[in-house]
């Protein structure tokens, strides 16, 4: 009997080994080229199933909506202006917009005939209602510059601002807030504002090419074609968002053909799925970086030598190669390669452990304990590599792995002790990204990092350029100053990527930032 059990056990282990061995080997070389479809003509119809790791908590109640909520609603909610593929702000719900520096006004002329999903008009009154909510609750940036707005006629809205010209007002006021139906909101509550809010948390009524059909929290969001869409009939009939938290399940679902698009794919799965014949759609670049605690008065990170020592200690190229499966590249600046502010001439701080040791010695922090706060998951590998390099130069690095709650609570709220591993992405253009996240009046505050006082005037000045050339130059100065001061320590550059079925034609990735033109996407029969 014992022999039989032993033999069966051995057989099981051998079978398991054979099964494992039969799996496709994972290449660590540069991934294959993107499959391209040429000559295909758009066709109407079809349902696209889209995988996202998490569903929205809040749908159409903009005051409680976060970026992750909005991301899956981009097919339903639209803004007054949008970014195009050249990183230019272009009118979207607006027919045109104009800033008058002398009168201190922004005049928005809306397109005529735009309808919300509930059938009500998207006119100046509806837009003004959205702005009223946003400004009263301080949801838009540069609120101190907001004076008042006036409805000139049914399709013209004039926003009056205070203070000096600010090139970020268009981003903050016209691009950031999505527009929702006033009529639907008020009708849902029938005079009871709390009822209206509860309705809006679970429903969305925007102007986008797809309207809400069904929503099951944490399960799915089904959107169907909005036949009255102002931009013409969308190609797809339906979009079904599926919220799948586990990447292995999501990857298998893509391979099985049970979904056509997967947003925010982990790097390892990008490689697997690309090798399986699926399409990799490259989106906006971002830089993975170490963010030092510059806010605490007694923080050791005010010492530039220490910050520089850390940057010189990191073998960024080695890390990018080892961790990125061919998709990462070493980053020398916080501005990703190819965007405004990236400088080819800046040499960066390349791996030089001896120089790192010298600088560490000079800083007086040799042997000091350094805590790196990191979000649980794939970033832990990066933090582990960082620890090894920092230990090598004579620091005592401790990796502190935090669950999302503690991580984001620290990043955006309570702060961190030494370093936090984070990322910097460019959604619109890089000047806008700077002001939104890093500037002297950021929309997103970090718990232990704010713009060093010596860069505040440069930051303010960068908002005064109305022309693109001036803005580009200002972005260059800002990112260079961040690099020279080693205020942020870039590690490697990542391109956010989605994976799509070869039959699904999508231009997302070519579009800039937080923009998806769902009316243009189509599915082969």
């Amino acid at each position, binding site marked *: 009997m014992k022999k039989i059990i032993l033999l069966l056990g051995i057989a099981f282990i051998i079978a398991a080994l054979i099964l494992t061995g039969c799996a496709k080997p994972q290449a660590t070389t540069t991934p294959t080229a993107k499959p391209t479809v040429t000559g295909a003509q758009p066709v109407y119809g079809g349902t696209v199933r889209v995988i996202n790791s998490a569903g929205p908590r809040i749908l159409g109640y903009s005051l409680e909506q976060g970026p992750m909520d909005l991301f899956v609603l981009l097919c339903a909610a639209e803004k007054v202006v949008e970014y195009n593929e050249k990183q230019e702000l272009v009118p979207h719900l607006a027919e045109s917009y104009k800033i008058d520096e002398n009168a201190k006004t922004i005049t928005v002329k809306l397109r005529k005939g735009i309808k919300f999903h509930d059938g009500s008009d998207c006119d100046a009154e509806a837009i003004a209602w959205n702005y009223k909510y946003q400004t009263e609750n*301080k*949801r838009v940036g540069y609120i101190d510059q907001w004076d008042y707005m006036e409805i000139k006629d049914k399709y013209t809205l004039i926003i009056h601002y205070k203070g000096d010209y600010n090139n970020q007002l268009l981003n903050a006021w016209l691009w950031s807030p999505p527009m929702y139906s006033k009529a639907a909101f008020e009708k849902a509550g029938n005079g009871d504002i709390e009822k209206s809010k509860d309705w809006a948390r679970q429903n969305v009524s925007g102007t986008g090419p797809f309207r809400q059909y069904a929503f099951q929290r944490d399960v799915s969001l089904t959107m169907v074609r909005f036949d009255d869409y102002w931009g013409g009939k969308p190609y797809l009939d339906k979009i079904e968002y599926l919220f799948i938290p*586990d990447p292995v399940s999501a990857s298998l679902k893509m391979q099985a053909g*049970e979904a056509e698009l997967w947003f925010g794919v982990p790097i390892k799965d990008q490689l697997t799925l690309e090798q399986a014949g699926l399409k990799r759609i490259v989106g906006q670049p971002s830089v993975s970086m170490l963010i030092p605690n510059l806010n605490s008065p007694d923080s050791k990170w005010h010492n530039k030598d220490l910050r520089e020592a850390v940057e010189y200690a990191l073998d960024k190229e080695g890390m990018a190669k080892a961790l990125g499966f061919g998709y990462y590249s070493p980053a020398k600046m916080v501005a990703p390669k190819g965007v405004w502010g990236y400088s080819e001439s800046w040499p960066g701080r390349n791996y030089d452990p001896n120089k790192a040791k010298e600088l560490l010695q000079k800083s007086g922090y040799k042997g000091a304990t350094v805590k790196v706060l990191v979000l649980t998951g794939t970033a832990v590998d990066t933090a582990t590599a960082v620890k090894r390099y920092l230990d090598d130069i004579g620091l005592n690095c401790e990796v502190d792995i935090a669950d999302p*709650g503690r991580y984001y609570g620290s990043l*955006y*709220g*309570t702060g961190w002790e030494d370093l936090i591993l984070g990322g910097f992405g460019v959604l619109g253009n890089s000047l806008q990204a700077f002001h939104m996240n890093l500037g002297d009046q950021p*929309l997103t505050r970090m718990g232990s990092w704010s713009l060093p006082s010596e860069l505040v005037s440069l930051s303010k000045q960068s908002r005064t350029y109305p022309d693109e050339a001036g803005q580009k130059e200002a972005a260059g100065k800002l990112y260079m100053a961040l690099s020279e001061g080693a205020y942020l320590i870039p590690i490697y550059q990542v391109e956010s990527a989605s994976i799509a079925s070869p039959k699904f034609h999508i231009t997302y990735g070519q579009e800039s930032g937080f923009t998806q033109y769902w009316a243009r996407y189509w599915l082969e029969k």
Partner: protein
Amino acid sequence: MTAYIIRRLIMAVIIIVIVTILVFCAIRLLPGDPLIIFLGQNANIEQMSQERIEQLRHEYGLDRHPVVQYFDWIGGVLRGDLGRSITYRDNVGKIMAERFPVTLHIGLTAFILGNAFGILLGIVAALRRGRWMDTVVTIISYIGISIPVFWLGFLLIYFFGLKLRWLPITGYVSPFVDFWQSTKSIIMPAICEMITGMAVIARQTRSAMLEVSRQDYIRTAWAKGLRERYIVVKHMLKNSLIPVITLLGIGVGMIFGGSVLVETVFAIAGVGRLLVTSVFQQDYIVVQSGVLVISSIVILSNLIVDISYGWLDPRIRYG
């Protein structure tokens, strides 16, 4: 018997109160602030103002003394109000009502099938002791006990979802919407949830059956020339079930514990996934209320198990 049940019910209430206090304290000991986590997701500096945080803290009653918070919550629970989720900005009772039927559907299916197959396999193994069937059952039960549930989930998805395309990889369909699709959607999750319990039950049944089979009254039954089926069902099985029944009570807890992993792997929005999300978000009220409901069910199941001993073994009497 009635006195015993009343005593156990009082004990159950005490245990539930202790559990609620433990969970209430444990979740608050975690580093981080649920409001900052919630507001942090808005990624809006103005929303993170101290004024706004304090306003929300007051709205959720988090500015009060923890003892007051506890009694406020318990008071609400007794009135049928489980509280309001910080993350979902909705009533917890409503959220639980959405999630519970899903977990219960899969869990009950796994519970019934797992126990039925477990007992059956245990009987077969005991009756065919030392033969190939016993060996197969032994191997299956060892695998069932040792295999990580999430890994089994991925294996099932790989073979039945990806390679054979027989079953949907993720998701759940209500039986009231489409019974056939619903059955297909719960096969793999139910297998994952039942496997460990089934294996343990099979081992326990086998061992108990073998123990009973050596008893004098079984030998007497054989000597009397009774039919095998009668001896097995009437004499052996019933007397072997007491330790197995104990495991059934524990199995209810295992079903809810397993749902945490299974619902994540199969992207099913049940109570398990809700609790995982809520722990990460430090959504106090959802965690407290979820644990309260689950612990009540587990304690009640164990009470039923304890009472059933008397039916299975007349020698057991409750004072």
